[in-house]
């Protein structure tokens, strides 16, 4: 606890020293929102006279302190018209701004072209920011626009497999991504085995992916932070958005309960994918049900200019059942309650209390032969985040976070009561506490040099009631230790420094560099390429150390064409310790001695990412190319030799383009190309009990064939009538236009006609798939 005390003292000292500077300086602060009342995250505030600026935080709040005087201030945000305010500053002022949406026919930017170079002057690197409406344009599988599928088209981000929602960032495994939905951790972001993500695009306001250079406010995962913010709900008028698609339908309703003060948003979605199974000729498939639904709720209430309350929730469920034989359902719940409080015009605070839960239930049979298996994990999180804006050269952030985790990895039992013929098996439950404290400052040291430095201190404790197994050097359980309820029996802690700097060469280009250290205390016990709903999260423990990563990145950023097009090149190197793999033939399910299946070692990855992106005008889109390598070395895996990780795909290219042919007609196209994933193939064979058994090669010694695919989509919008709000659009999209049979799985088997002959077959999942979606808005 000593280092935390030191941090607090350091904090106080900084406060005092900064306050002693003030001499006749006043603060302009406020919120920036769009026409419907939604707060704009990262909107820029630029003071022309002093050539300094700031940006709004995640709650749309900004604050800038200047000496007494007259100023021209430009407020801007991508896709919106700039607003210029002339201010006479002789006292603290609250200036709230509403920005209007820019018409799409404007190619060039008016007033200050400088404001478009936000990406040049911010220290942020290794991040991708997207708006929900950009995601809507990308042609989608089955017409289902999806946040994660679109992110998989960004440099440094890869899909774990065709159609899957899991993603890898810079050679990290899918469980190393911290996915936050309105600050609540989402443990399983997939519906239907990963073919769809749990995020309903209509309810989303903003998405930001950090691939490295994760800010000090966040921690807990090594490779990335995906911060998704839900819309608040229109504060001005009632709106409905929805759509009927090939696979699912959705409806979002939002509006004010009290205009400008209290709004509500409800978004729901349900698939009917299983209807297609009715068309199957296979009898057993006809009785299969497979569907998911989800619901997003948000309400936000402005008590006054200094206080706002938000409550948001997510509830989603996947259901799979096979006639009466068995049923299986799983899903996430999250609930976030937040209080924004403007303490002073320079100090903003947010206090949140968050609950998340992920669970699944499997049932089969009935009566004496009935059987049920349940598993879940829950988090209770309390956090306080503060932003302090002492002067235009410094933005200080600090805060604390405490999480209580409860793990119930699995409880399987017969359901027939005393007549049941099955005993029960319970995996030991466990609890953990995770704390963090952080302090960071974005410091403009020179005119063209800004450094963002910060430190995050974290601590993790295991807490009883729990049963801990002790293993010997051969991973065999020797005995177990039992801890009583609330007994703290293991503590890990660490410091995670984060530093990034921006050296601006000129108004159009800059060089950025960053270093960060991250620690991860929770691990996903999964050894398959595809995530499955049965994957179990485990805490660090006396048997499993926390994962650690150190990442360095260097980038060159340049805007061209009057700042309309941004380009960047970034190289990174990431070193990861205490990485998890599993022994051959690991038993991960319903195994109380699961920790004995872990094999721990190192992993590392490096690469170069190129991006060209245009976000305004009639033609928008991007080209992203990543060249990378991702390897591992773990004793007992592959005889201790280095092997490529399952996500080592050296070439990753995505080209995305959208073009407004006219006001009512938009065409979009996506072309992706990736190297095939590493895979283990047989090299030999032998016979045993009339079967041919393969002998396997080195781990990941082969590759799947390369993957590429073209998607197209066309959107036709209804005529915009001046007095009618009702609008609709029809979207036709085609997935895999040239019908490439991309290998999803390669199998080796005996020829049923001639058992001496073995052959290889390719399974492919998605041939050309057209889909139709009708979206409406009123």
């Amino acid at each position, binding site marked *: 606890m000593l280092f935390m005390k030191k941090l607090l003292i350091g904090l106080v000292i900084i406060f005092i020293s900064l306050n002693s500077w003030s001499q006749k300086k006043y603060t302009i602060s406020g919120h920036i929102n769009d026409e419907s009342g939604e707060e704009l995250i990262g909107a820029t505030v630029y003071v022309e006279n002093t050539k300094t600026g700031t940006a709004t935080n995640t709650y749309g709040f900004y604050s800038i302190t200047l000496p007494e005087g007259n100023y021209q201030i430009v407020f801007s945000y991508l896709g919106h018209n700039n607003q210029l305010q002339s201010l006479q500053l002789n006292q603290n002022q609250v200036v709230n701004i509403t920005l209007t949406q820019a018409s799409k026919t404007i190619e060039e930017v008016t007033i200050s072209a400088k404001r478009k170079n936000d990406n040049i002057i911010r220290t942020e690197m290794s991040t991708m920011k997207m708006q929900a409406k950009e995601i809507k344009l990308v042609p989608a599988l089955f017409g289902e626009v999806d946040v994660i599928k679109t992110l998989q088209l960004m440099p440094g981000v890869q899909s774990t497999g065709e159609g899957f929602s899991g993603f890898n960032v810079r050679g990290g495994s899918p469980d190393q991504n911290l996915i936050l939905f309105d600050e609540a951790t989402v443990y399983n972001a997939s519906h239907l085995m990963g073919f769809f993500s749990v995020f309903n695009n209509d309810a989303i306001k903003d998405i930001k992916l950090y691939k490295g250079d994760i800010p000090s406010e966040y921690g807990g995962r090594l490779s990335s932070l995906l911060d998704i913010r839900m819309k608040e709900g229109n504060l001005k008028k009632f709106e409905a958005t929805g759509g009927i698609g090939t696979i699912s339908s959705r409806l979002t309703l939002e509006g004010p309960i009290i205009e400008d003060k209290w709004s509500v948003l409800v978004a729901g979605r349900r698939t009917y994918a299983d209807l297609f199974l009715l068309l199957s000729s296979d009898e057993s*498939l006809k009785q299969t049900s497979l569907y998911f639904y989800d619901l997003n709720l948000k309400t936000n209430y402005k008590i006054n200019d200094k206080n706002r309350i938000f409550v948001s929730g997510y509830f989603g469920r996947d259901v799979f059942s096979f006639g009466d034989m068995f049923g299986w359902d799983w899903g996430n719940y999250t609930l976030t309650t937040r209080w924004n409080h403007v303490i002073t015009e320079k100090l903003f605070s947010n206090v949140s209390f968050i609950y998340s839960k992920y669970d699944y239930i499997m049932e089969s049979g009935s009566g004496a032969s009935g059987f049920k298996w349940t598993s879940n994990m829950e988090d209770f999180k309390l956090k306080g985040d503060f932003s302090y804006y002492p002067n235009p050269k410094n933005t200080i952030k600090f805060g604390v976070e405490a999480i209580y985790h409860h793990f119930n990895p699995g409880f399987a039992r017969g359901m027939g009561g005393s007549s049941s013929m099955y005993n029960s098996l319970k995996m030991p439950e466990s609890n953990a506490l995770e704390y963090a404290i952080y302090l960071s400052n974005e410091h403009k040291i020179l005119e063209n040099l800004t450094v963002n430095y910060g430190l995050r201190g974290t601590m993790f404790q295991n807490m009883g009631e729990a049963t801990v197994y002790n293993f010997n050097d051969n991973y065999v359980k020797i005995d177990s230790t039992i801890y009583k309820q609330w007994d703290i029996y293991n503590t890990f802690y660490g410091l995670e420094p984060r530093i990034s700097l921006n050296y601006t060469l000129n108004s159009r280009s800059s060089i950025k560099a960053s270093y960060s250290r991250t620690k991860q205390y929770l691990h996903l016990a999964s050894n398959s390429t595809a995530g499955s709903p049965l994957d179990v999260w485990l805490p660090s423990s006396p048997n499993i150390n926390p994962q650690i990563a150190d990442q360095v990145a260097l980038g060159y950023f340049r805007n061209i064409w009057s700042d309309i097009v941004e380009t960047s090149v970034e190289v990174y190197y990431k070193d990861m310790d205490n990485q998890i793999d599993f022994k051959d033939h690991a038993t991960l399910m319903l195994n109380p001695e699961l920790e004995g299946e872990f094999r721990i070692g190192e992993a590392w990855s490096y690469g170069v990412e190129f991006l060209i992106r245009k976000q305004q005008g009639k033609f928008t889109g991007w080209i992203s190319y990543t060249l990378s390598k991702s390897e591992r070395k773990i004793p007992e895996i592959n005889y201790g030799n280095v092997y490529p990780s399952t996500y080592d795909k050296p070439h990753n290219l995505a080209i995305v383009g959208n073009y407004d042919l006219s006001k009512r007609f938009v065409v979009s196209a996506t072309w992706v190309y990736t190297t095939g994933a590493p895979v283990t193939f047989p090299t030999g064979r032998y*016979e045993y009990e009339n079967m041919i*058994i393969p002998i396997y090669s080195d781990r990941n010694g082969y590759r799947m064939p390369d993957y590429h695919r073209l998607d197209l989509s066309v959107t036709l919008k209804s005529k915009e009538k001046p007095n009618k709000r009702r609008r609709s659009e029809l979207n036709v999209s085609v997935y895999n236009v040239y019908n490439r049979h991309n290998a999803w799985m390669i199998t080796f088997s005996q020829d049923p006609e001639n058992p001496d002959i073995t052959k290889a077959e390719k*399974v492919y999942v998605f041939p050309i798939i057209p889909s139709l979606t009708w979206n409406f808005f009123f």
Partner: protein
Amino acid sequence: MEFLFLKLTKMKHLLYLISIAILLSSCVEDYNVKLKSTYVRVVVQGSITDEYKTHQVKLSKSADYFSNQPAEKITDAEVTLSDGVNILNLTETSDGIYETDSIAGIPGNTYTLNIDINGEKYESSCYLNACPPIDSIKFGYYDNIYYDSTLMILLYALEPETPNNFYLWKVHKNNVLVTDTLFEVVFSDDVFINGNYMYDIAVQWVEANTSDTITLEMQSITEEYYDYVNQLLAETVWDGGPFDGPPANPLGNISNGAMGFFNAYSVFKITAIVPEKEKWILLESF
């Protein structure tokens, strides 16, 4: 339904089912791939049971994956079997097949197999478990056109209270072994049923009709063999693709890099004649 549960005790297999169900639209094509070669391994398939008969050990060689020939047999090897006290020499009765004289293994013993192939030595041992008795078997069926002539063999037996028992079931019809390939056997641990009286549990199935003679063979196997069969089937017929872990070679119990398994088990066989359809038990359909 119940038999499916036994087979699906490892839930991984459920995922196999699911991935098939989801991939209703998935298609399969032949795939041309060039695979590297690998060095030749010795493969051993041998067993000793508590039945009074000759017991066999088969020796063969591994080959490259697309060699597409029957496995090459290993001849002129020296094979001996020991129970710790006596040593038996096995005689090569045909190419690659080495047999003992008629003997019966004794539950409680550990049997050791020693093989010498041109100076290279291989060794394996396995404990012979005792087998609990089966009280009776009955026949069940599902009222479903899919399983028209398939009879479920229902087991009635008391599972011993001692934990860590493992079983494997095979079926004979009219004195001929039906389940002669490894993926046709059913096997289970006793985790969920330990110490319970098993009734109405379908442990095997057979295409048969009234007046066929059905013999259910229950084997009491070791945990090592149970793991081996599990791993073997996971790498072959139960491959769930991306939902499974990476493939790996099953761990046999032979030393010096040989593949395969030397298995010791005891057997309980029970025979019944299939009665008229009215006497068959209707099982919960799905």
